[in-house]
């Protein structure tokens, strides 16, 4: 896991634990909705947080946010623009 993936996993974990404190680990295979129950607002907050942490927003230019299903999809989206 590289630095970008680690940052993304930590950000996902922080938001996921607000709803489900029992979640202890985030991996590329996890589904953002099915495994962590992220809502529309959670998605928006996650993307905003990652924009600050990674200084990039892939969804403003090239990547469709509607294609993001898993943590891995999210990692790949940021790697495209970093």
């Amino acid at each position, binding site marked *: 896991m590289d630095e970008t993936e680690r940052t993304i996993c930590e950000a996902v974990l922080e938001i996921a634990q*607000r*709803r489900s404190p029992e979640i202890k680990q985030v991996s590329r295979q996890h589904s953002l909705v099915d495994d962590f129950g992220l*809502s*529309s*607002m*959670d*998605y*928006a*907050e996650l*993307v*905003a*947080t990652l*924009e*600050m942490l990674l200084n990039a*927003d892939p*969804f*403003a*230019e*090239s*990547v*469709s*946010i*509607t294609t993001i299903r898993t943590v891995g999809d999210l990692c790949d989206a940021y790697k495209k623009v970093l």
Partner: protein
Amino acid sequence: MLIDTVELTLSHVDLGELTEFAAMTLFGNAISHRIVLGTDVTVPEITDSDGNTLYPSYFMTHLKVPHSALLSSYKLWDRVAVGVNVRVFGGMILESSYLLGRPDEIPQDLDLWNTDAFPSMTGGTLFVVEESRGGEPKPSVPRGGLIAEMPKLAKPPASVAEFATVQTRGSLDPGFKGKLVSQAPIRHAVATGRDLAPGHALMFASFGKILDHVERTLLADLVFPPFPTDLINHLSLLERQTFYLNNCYGDQVLLANVRGRLTPSDIVSRSAGSVPAATLTMVVELYEQTSRKLLVSSKASKLFALPSSRTTLLRDMERLLFLHGED
């Protein structure tokens, strides 16, 4: 920051005065103008990277009206100014603040905005894809360059966490209790043409009209002894916070869970012709009947501002405070 100057025309206030609905739509117009300020695009031209049309959807509004500047003090053909300031958190979340006054009353300097003297609102907004009926709202990011540059927030607006709390608790004030209650949910059938435009979801400001209708039904028809309608007509909004969790469509039926508290007013009026006789606080949750989805949670405070010349109304108010008021 942007200041819109608007004449209150028949389309805003009918033949009357500024209402909550009209004020909210002025604020909605102002944020729409602000987010494309200085760009070559119009609001319907804001799209995401897939070409989906996006629109700014309120998830929270908090309107405050000082008793010294009630909305009814702004009348047909008056000119008003609406100041709006918008900050962004990431590409999708907007935090906005608004101030409404006469054209020379809204300072260009945000630090000088006096929310104790003029009607004001804060709002939380999310860019979402225009949804088909019943679909989940899909947040998305406007393509680069399609919206104006706006100041950035370093952390999420407080309304984001509050929204999540309302989602999980089912009310923005779950512990609220009052003597004014309905034994069963109050029904409101959403009518296309009256409540919303054909083919569209309900506009955020229209929920205020439905909440007012529910409140009126409770006071006039469901509590006994009832509130005279002439008395209800003198209710003035002081504050309403609303969280919008889901939307509704034409021909759906809403079920309202309502409770209210009536208390003597502690407001000292400087107006010779008006008596601040009592305060009504109402908490309402609206559900959609078929899906059982929670759509809206709202808490409002209103003032019975009665003309001092109407002694019968003043006696009515005293009687109702005795019968329904909190101990």
